C-alpha cells in the first residue's frame, strides 16, 4: 500500500518522469492530435496511453487517486468463447502423427448412436458387422485401425450436471457402460488428464499461455 509520503514524493517528482524519446516536433504533433480529440474530457478519470513498461504496447492509467477497494472502471461485459474445439482437445490429447492418422481413418465417417464407442470396445464391430458398420462407422474404423477409441469422446457432451465429480471419483473405470454414454466428455477429460493440463496452461485465474501457439 502506498503511504502518504510516497504519494507526495511521486507528485513532487512527476515532472522528472515526463521524459519521452520523441523529438519535440513529434511530441507536439502527437499532443495536438490527442488534445484535439479529447479537448472536452477535462474530468476524464481513465486514460489509455503507452505503457510505462518499455516495449509493452498500450496501458491504462488512472487520472484520479483511487482508494483501496474502489471500483476502477465502468462495469464490463464478458465475451465467452466456448469449446475451442477441436483445437484445444486435439492439441492436448493427440500427437502430431496421431492427428494425421486420425483424420485419415475417420474421414467423414460418423456414429449415429451414443453407445457406439462402448459397443465397439465390446467387439460388436466383428460380431455384428452389418449393423455396426452402418450405425457406428466411425467407431469401427477407429477400432480397426488400432487407435484409442476413447478419443472419439472428445466431441461428445455430458448429459448429467455432476459428471465432473463422478469422473473425479473414478466412476469412468468402475461403471464404464453408464459413464461412456452419460458423461463422455468428463471421462475423456479425465482419461487424458485434460483438466490438469488446462490448469497448467491457464494458471488458476490467468491468461492462456500463448507459448502453446494455438492457431486462432
Amino acid at each position, binding site marked *: 500500500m*502506498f503511504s502518504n509520503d510516497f504519494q507526495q514524493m511521486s507528485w513532487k517528482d512527476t515532472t522528472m518522469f515526463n521524459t519521452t524519446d520523441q523529438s519535440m516536433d513529434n511530441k507536439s504533433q502527437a499532443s495536438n492530435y490527442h488534445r484535439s*480529440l479529447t479537448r472536452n474530457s477535462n474530468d476524464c478519470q481513465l486514460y*489509455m496511453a*503507452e505503457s510505462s513498461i518499455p516495449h509493452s504496447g498500450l496501458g491504462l*492509467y488512472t487520472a484520479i487517486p483511487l482508494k483501496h477497494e474502489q471500483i476502477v472502471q465502468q462495469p464490463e*461485459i464478458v465475451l465467452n468463447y*466456448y469449446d475451442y474445439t477441436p483445437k484445444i482437445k486435439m492439441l492436448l490429447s493427440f500427437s502430431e502423427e496421431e492427428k494425421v492418422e486420425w483424420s485419415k481413418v475417420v474421414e467423414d465417417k460418423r456414429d449415429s448412436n451414443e453407445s457406439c464407442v462402448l459397443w465397439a470396445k465390446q467387439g460388436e464391430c466383428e460380431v455384428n458387422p452389418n449393423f455396426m458398420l452402418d450405425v457406428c462407422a466411425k467407431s469401427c474404423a477407429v477400432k480397426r485401425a488400432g487407435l484409442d477409441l476413447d478419443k472419439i469422446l472428445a466431441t461428445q457432451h455430458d448429459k448429467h450436471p455432476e459428471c465432473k465429480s463422478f469422473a473425479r471419483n473414478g466412476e469412468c473405470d468402475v461403471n464404464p457402460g453408464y459413464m461412456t454414454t452419460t458423461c463422455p466428455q468428463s471421462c475423456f477429460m479425465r482419461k487424458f488428464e485434460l483438466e490438469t493440463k488446462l490448469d497448467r496452461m491457464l494458471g488458476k485465474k490467468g491468461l492462456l499461455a500463448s507459448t502453446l501457439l494455438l492457431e486462432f
Partner: protein
Amino acid sequence: MPQHYFWSSDTSRSGHEADITLSIIPGLGALANSHLGLVNVQATSLSVGSAGYHRSKDVGVGAFSDRYNLNFEATENIPAGMELFVNYGSDYFSTRENKMGPMPMMPDYFESEDILEDFWKHLDLDTSGNKNATESYAKLMDSITKPKVKMVMPKTFEEAESVRGAKAAILNVPNVIKSQDWLDDNGMCLDNIYPGDSKVPQAGRGAFASRKINNGQLISPMPLMHMNKNVFRVLNDEREIGTQLMLNYVFGHEKSSLVMLPYSPTVNFVNNHADKSKVNARMQWSMNKYHNKSWEVESVEYILGQDNAGLMLELMAITDIEKDEEIYIDYGAKWDEAWADHVQNWKAPPRSHEYMSVEVLNDAEEVRTEKERVEEPLGYNVITLCWLEVTAFERDIVHGVQELKWKDYSVDVTRENLEDDTSTYCFVEERYQSDRESGSTRTLYQIYVVGSARGIEKKVFVDDVPREAIYFVNKPYTSDQHIESAFRHMIHIPDDMFPKNWMDLDHKQSVME
C-alpha cells in the same frame, strides 16, 4: 492472436457454461498490462442475466452476452496518474521465461516486501546512523539466497530508502506515475461512455455518454484484436450448427475473413440504430501510432500471422451528444436486413417455457427446498451451487466431523469467483428462521451434498447456510449464448473504409453470410 487475451472461466463465473470456456474481458481485462510487482487492480464478482428478456418471447435473447457488471477494484490506494496493472497469473510469465529470461513471480515480490518491512522495523537510524544502515543493508542483501527475490530487492540502502512505504518494483519502472499534462498529451480518454439498459428494444445493454460530447470529438478509441472469421463456426460432431456469440461483437466485411474485436472499456456495448437519423457516432481509422497504417496494404494472411494487436478504430461523435444520451452507430445495411429477417422468422426455441432465467432465481429473496421443487420445479436448465471452502469441507467429511455448520467453510460470496474449490453442487433440504438467541432472526437453510468427497456416497448435511451462499447457474450448453437459432451477425465496416487488400473472399462464397 486472441489467446493472449483469454481469461480462464473462473474469472468470469463461466466454468459451467461448456466443457471448456475461455473469456475475453475488454478494458482492464485486455488493455491493462501486468507487472507482478506492481499489481494494483483485480476483477471482482459479476452479474449474469439477459436484461430481463426471456427466450420464450424475446427475439434478442442470445444475441448479446449475458455476463456483465464485471467490476475491477483497486487492491490498494493508488495515486493519481499511476498505471494500472492486473495479475495475468504467474503461468503467463513462467511459460515465457525461456524467451524473456528469469522472471520474479508474485511470491518473490511479497517475500522481498516482507524482508524490507522487517529491515525498517529493526533499523534504528538515530543510534546507528546512515553509514551503519548502508552496511547492514549490504549484509541483508548478501544473506538473501533466492536469486529471484534478490532480483526484485532494491540494490542499495539509498534505493531502498527512496521507495520506503511503496513497492520496490517501482524502481524498475520509474515512469509509472504520469502527470495530468502527460496524460492529456499522450493519452486518450476511456470513460466518455458508460453502460446501461439500451433504449433499443431487444438490444440488451447499450452505451451512454458520461458527459457532453461535441460533434467531431472522440468518444472512445477502439484498439482491435484481429482474428479469422472461421473461428466462430460451431461444429458439433463435425456438423456445423451455428456461430459463437462473439461474432456479434466483431467488426468486419462480408468479403473478408479478417474480423476485429475492440477491447477498450465499454465500446462493446454500443448499439446499432435502424433509424439512421438517430445515429450519432461513426468509426474512423486512428491516426496514432498504434494503428499500423502499413497493414492496410498487407494481406489477410500477413495480418493474421501478427502476434500483437496493431489496428485501431476511433469512435467519433457526428452530432453534439448530450450527457446520458445513448450512443448509436450504423452496423451496415446487411446487418439491418439480417435483423429484420430474424425478427420476422423468429420462433421460440424448443423447451423455452420450461427454461428459467438464473438471474431471477439469484435475485429472489428465498430459495425453494427440494420438496417445494416437486410441486413447483425449477427450469430444466438450472444447477444449484453452494459456496463453501470445499477442501476444508471434504477433509471434515472424511474425518467424520458431525453437525457441519456453514460458518466453518464460509467464503466471501461478494468477492469470490466461481472455482472448483469454493463451490459445490448442493440440494436444499430445509428453510428455517435462525433461533432468537442471536437477537435478530434471519432465514437460513440446511443443504446437503452428495458424493462430493472421494468414496462418500451418503448425503452430507450442512446447517445455517445463508441465502447468499446459494447460487444458481445454467447447466452446460443451456444458457442464452447456446441458443442455436439466436441472432448472429458481425458489425460491418463501410465499403469505403475497408482496405481492398483485405477482401480475400471477393470472388468466393463467404462461409458466414
